[in-house]
């Protein structure tokens, strides 16, 4: 098993996390650090992929702002996505040059991580070939979008644990009108915490990606790694 750091960043704004990923990806590209898995939550934010369509954001930006929701353009693949507290965001910064398989395989592996993690709660997640991500009974429980820069992955997959699902109505999920989001809490009808979900995600990530996870603190990542 190859080593991979894992860091729980807690609540971090999207732009700050994007900057952090960019710098970590550069370091990984230079082989100055090992692969690193970031687990975090974002304050409410709508993000658009590099070629995402603004018309898939159903609420004007000033109205979003009134609701305390930011709007950001991203460099990841995919269309509109909504992030908020209660959603576990999983960002693996991994060097594809050191991995077997292709990029599509890596995306599929991330989907598998979520499938295995939510199975621990008795939830059966499914892939939808037309729209990558994880779906449960036609509702999206995890959204995925990746960017590869010089062989290193950025962004990843986000699992709805216990977010306010009504807030997801500000976008067309995956650019599709009428699709709804769901969550572990909603499906299981019991309270599930992000921390609980993170533990299962951690185990599934190690198994599926075949890595040995080593904890690194947020202060170490922000201070020592980035200088």
């Amino acid at each position, binding site marked *: 098993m190859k080593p991979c750091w894992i860091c729980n960043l807690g609540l971090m704004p999207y732009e700050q996390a994007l900057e952090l990923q960019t710098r970590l990806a550069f370091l990984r590209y230079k082989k*100055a650090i090992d692969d690193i898995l970031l687990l975090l939550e974002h304050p409410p934010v709508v993000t658009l992929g590099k070629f995402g369509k603004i018309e898939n954001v159903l609420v004007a930006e000033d109205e979003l702002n009134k609701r305390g929701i930011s709007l950001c353009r991203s460099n990841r693949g995919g269309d509109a996505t909504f992030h908020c507290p209660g959603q576990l965001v999983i960002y693996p910064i991994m060097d594809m*040059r050191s991995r077997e398989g292709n990029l599509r395989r890596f995306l599929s592996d991330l989907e598998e991580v979520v499938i295995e993690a939510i199975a621990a709660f008795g939830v059966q997640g499914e892939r939808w070939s037309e729209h990558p991500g994880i779906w449960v009974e036609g509702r999206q429980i995890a959204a995925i979008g990746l960017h*590869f820069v010089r062989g290193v992955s950025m962004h990843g997959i986000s699992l709805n644990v216990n977010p306010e699902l009504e807030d997801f109505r500000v976008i067309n999920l995956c650019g599709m009108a009428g699709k709804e989001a769901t969550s572990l809490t909603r499906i299981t009808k019991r309270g599930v915490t992000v921390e609980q979900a993170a533990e299962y995600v951690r185990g599934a990530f190690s198994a599926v990606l075949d890595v040995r996870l080593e904890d690194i603190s947020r202060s170490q990542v922000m201070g020592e790694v980035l200088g």
Partner: protein
Amino acid sequence: MKQSKDSNKNPACQGEKLSRRDFLRHAGLVTGGIAVTSMAVAAGCTDGDNTTTPATTPPTTTKPTTTPTSTVNPTTTPTTILPTTTGNGDFIYVPPTSNPELVDVVGCTSKVAADRLYSEEHVWVKPLENNLAVIGMTDKMQLLLGLVERGELVLNLVGTELEYDGWLGNFEGQKMNVDMYSPVTGIIIQVNDDLYINSRVLESEPYLRGWLYVVELSKPEELDNLLDPIEYATAQANPNA
């Protein structure tokens, strides 16, 4: 905190800008446009007055008839072809009809054509006469991407000034976005319009009909920094070296 062997060299932490030569040495870009079902014209490219200045005689270009948009209209006829460095009329690149000879390196599982140069980031460069070169994506790129359907390849326009290690193009598909980087500096004088009609050649004929651009090189000496076929194939066989 675990230290990697290069952790004492941390240009990002020191604010040191990565040199372009370092990019060539260390690159291993995983990008690739494979199966492209449509093409999009990149926003932000130069258009209008294409009176860019190459290293030699300024070309006379025709203004692109394609308007930069986010998606391609396959029925739109893109611009006709390009100028020459000598000003002797239009230049039209016609790819060979027969497959190039391949190199054989143990451990290299992708096809590597023996008649061109390569960047470590899976872009091939085939020098032509008069400081021109054809650029395309390697077989390795399309294997890495692993997508045959529903992808979009975003390319630059004719007249775009490419910078070494600058943006060459982008592949978007299946929730993934992959950037490509130019191994040369120059001006795009031709874009492979046939890709609008048959994008699958990116997968089936990456070294023949799957070419992307013809570029007028403004720094031909950059070709010296590229890998020869054996070097490139060897790098594929030893990715962790």
